[in-house]
């Protein structure tokens, strides 16, 4: 007995076995077929033994179920009639999701409004993809968090069972307050940098060249740069110049730092760097500069434009330096690296790490380790002579600079 029940409709009124025998695929007119299939719930059988030729395959039955299943859940959907564009957009996104496009599962009213404000179709798609990525990352993080919490619970339970037996007979020198100690030590170092450190300026005058998303990226990079600087042996004294109170920049920075903003060990000012420092000691760092930086000079004030440029507005910072009549320099990337792909513009945190490294060691190879590896294939051979020079420089520098490991020892002394 080889009868297969193709599908069973749960609400079938009459369970009449009904077989379709299609002679030709185009034999039925659409109307007739629809009429028949809506009358009779399709419950087809077919015989496997008789090596079913394609004509005997029942191909159109699914249409009937699709259509009739609708009439039931169709009722519930009719109720809301007032379709404003927000609701239709929501539906559109839902349909796109069904199609497997990269759109978020849940979308808030605000995000919908932002979506509606997007000027073009591609902008909308881009924004939706961004939301999708965000949602995915958030979900993954949530899942990981839950997994970790579970593992922690497990470990706790296990420890409870064990530790009851063998107990406190150990001597310790310190309480476990490492994080706080480190923070205090870094704070002391920061204060010293405020007094005696070499200035490093972030020029914040680019907010009207950037879109909101770029501005947010910039602020993230600023936060990271500040963090790298704080942890260094010999930090810069950071200046945020041209930072207008209540500009988008300022608001975003305060939003990210919260109450820490007023306690940061750096100088934020509305003034331009030209007002704060003598003009001839300023060097504006920009990738468009024709002059290449050869050495890090400890008596100069370097300016970094805090500008994420996704729009390829080349020459903006060079134009700025030209207007103020400042010296400009760019990193000697081409001299030391076999450049492969990507922009010569580096992120702010990469810049500050390179500068910090140069300040402490003066070694270009070491400093340019912070250039992303994907952008270059490797270091270029530097001629013997210049290597000799570098070695000499290194010797003189290492005498009065600290080794990396000595960070804690040094801070404890003070």
């Amino acid at each position: 007995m080889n009868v297969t029940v193709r599908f069973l409709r749960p609400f079938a009124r009459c369970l009449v076995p009904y077989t379709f025998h299609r002679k030709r695929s185009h034999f039925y007119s659409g109307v007739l077929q629809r009429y028949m299939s809506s009358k009779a719930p399709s419950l087809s059988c077919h015989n496997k033994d008789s090596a079913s030729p394609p004509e005997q395959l029942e191909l159109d039955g699914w249409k009937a179920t699709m259509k009739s299943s609708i009439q039931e859940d169709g009722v519930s959907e009719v109720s809301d009639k007032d379709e404003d564009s927000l609701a239709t957009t929501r539906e559109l996104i839902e349909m796109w999701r069904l199609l497997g496009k990269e759109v978020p599962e849940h979308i808030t009213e605000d995000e919908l409004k932002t979506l509606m404000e997007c000027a073009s179709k591609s902008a909308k798609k881009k924004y939706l993809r961004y939301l999708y990525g965000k949602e995915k990352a958030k979900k993954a993080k949530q899942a990981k968090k839950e997994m970790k919490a579970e593992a922690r619970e497990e470990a706790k339970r296990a420890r409870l069972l064990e530790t009851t037996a063998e107990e406190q007979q150990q001597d310790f020198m310190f309480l476990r307050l490492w994080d706080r100690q480190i923070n205090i030590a870094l704070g002391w170092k920061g204060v010293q940098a405020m007094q005696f450190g070499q200035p490093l300026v972030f020029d914040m005058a680019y907010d009207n060249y950037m879109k909101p998303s770029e501005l947010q990226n910039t602020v993230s990079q600023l936060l990271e740069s500040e963090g790298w600087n704080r942890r260094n042996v010999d930090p810069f004294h950071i200046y945020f110049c041209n930072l207008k109170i209540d500009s988008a920049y300022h608001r975003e920075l305060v939003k990210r730092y919260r109450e820490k903003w007023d306690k940061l060990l750096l100088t934020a000012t509305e003034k331009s760097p030209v007002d704060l420092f003598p003009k001839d000691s300023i060097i504006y760092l920009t990738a468009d500069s024709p002059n290449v930086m050869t050495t890090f000079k400890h008596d100069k004030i370097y300016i970094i434009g805090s500008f994420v440029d996704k729009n390829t507005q080349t020459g903006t910072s060079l134009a700025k330096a030209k207007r103020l009549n400042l010296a400009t320099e760019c990193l000697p990337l081409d001299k030391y690296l076999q450049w492969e792909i990507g922009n010569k513009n580096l992120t702010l945190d990469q810049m500050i790490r390179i500068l910090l490294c140069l300040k402490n060691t003066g070694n270009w190879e070491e400093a340019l380790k912070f250039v992303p590896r994907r952008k270059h294939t490797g270091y270029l051979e530097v001629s013997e002579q210049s290597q000799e020079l570098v070695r000499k420089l290194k010797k003189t520098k290492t005498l009065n600079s600290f080794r990396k490991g000595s960070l804690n020892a040094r801070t404890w002394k003070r």
Partner: protein
Amino acid sequence: MTFYLSGFRNIPKLWKSNPYFELGPATSSAPFFLCAIGNQQRWFSVKPTTPPNSKALNLLVTKARTHRKGNDNNGQVSSDPHYFAAGAAKKRSHIGANPQNQGHALPVRSSVQLPTKPLNSAEWDKLKEDFKGKASFEDFIISQMARNCCSVDVAKSLLAWVAAKNNGIVGYNLLVKYLYLCVFHKQTSEVIDVYEIMKAKYKSLESGGYTLLIRGLIHSDRWRESLLLLEDIKKVMVPSKKNYGDCIQGALLHQDVNTAWSLYQELVGHNLIPPLETLKAFFDYGKDINDDHYSDKLLDILLYLRNNQLYPGESFAHSIKTWFESIPGRQWKGQFTTIQKSGQCSGCGRTIESIHLSPEEYEFLKEKIMRDVIDGGDQYKKTTPQELKRFESFVNSCPPFDIVIDGLNVAKMFSKGRESQNLLGVVSQLAQQNLQLLVLGRKHMLRPSSQWRKDEMEQVQKQAHCFFADNISQDDPFLLYATLNSGNHCKFITKDLLRDHKACLPDARTQRLFFKWQQGHQLAIMKGFQKSKLTFQHILSYDTVVQRTGDSWHIPYDEDLVQRSSCEVPTKWLCLQRKTPGPC
């Protein structure tokens, strides 16, 4: 060297019979082989005998290449079209490029053999067991079917199987892809069925589904519903030009001309550029009706083509021709021709519109170049205010120039010889013709070096006016402005296509003006010049655009087999003229 040879013999074989190429044991060496092929193919194409040694071989290659280059050039002189002719850039880029092994696409392997006839559910189950992949089986298989344009019945059997397993429910993504297949195979009744299902099942669809439904429905009796679908799209976004195009074609298929025209108006109103097939459909339809109103509208379309510098394709040109010839009583005669260098149509001998801008357009362009390209909101970006002032006073102090030369571009054009020598060569040849010259350059050209000799630069300065910008300033904007400022007769020499400066202009209309001006005023030096007489690429004297002169139309069109880049214009024309009513 025998190694090379034997290695080489094997490689093409490997290349051709390589179903294992990705999977086989030689995977690790694949990249090496690839690059080896790249090199050796080049050698081989030049000299198929045993190579004596690689160095000599390379010499041979370069020799052969330069030789061929020369030949190409000679060939070009006779048949060479102008600098902006369709396909010219491609030709330029191919000259000197080694013949590469193109068209060797690696075969794409799919892990599942697509069925050729409808399967029953057991067979589908078995196929699913064989399948291993990331995506869901149903999704993957129907995507493959859509890609390979399987027959509708196979897809239908898949859907039936899915529905059977899934309580009679078929997912939206499967439905859409099935719909795609139905539309592709023009199975209108199936399209209508799917349309019914979708309408009942979902309250609204997304753009992809709508587009397919519109395209499927326009052939059926229920084509009016495609207009409703278009309305649905409009609720959320602007429909694409294809959506409009399909609806218009549907309306024309069913003789509803008014709807078609109103949709066309809407399409143009959204600033979308109508697809050329849609415009062609209007012309095709026009053959059957004889209505003055309708023909006026068709002439409006031709004007639209003119204003937006669109060029019809080959088949569209044929449609235009047939439509004109079908107008009763007028006796239009159409022929496909080319335009002579003098700007006269080879078919009828009429002169084509001149390339020169009208005085208003000229002033407009000049001001735009000054404001958007040179200044651009920040004078420091391309130059400095001091330099700009210096340049303006310099230009005003000189008489109008005849030719403005981009010094650096010209100097670097020829790989042989010093740069200053090349520049001097060009300048002195032009100076002999008693032309007022301006050489634009940068200050570093004045500093003596191995490439820039002082005496030669002094001679250049004797024979021409010179302006040297700062080393970090851009010289092209100055070039444009100096040329525009000197007047309509002034030309400029550079091989640069100036696309980045064109992109600085604010809107499409200004960009088109710029392009027209550029076609008429740019002189490009032909390659291969060395100590011989200076020859330029031919400058167009006429404008390549749809145009009407009294009783005739001239319509440039794109040939199907020629690829045209956006900075080029077509070379083929459709010439339409009315037969003068004879005495009989």
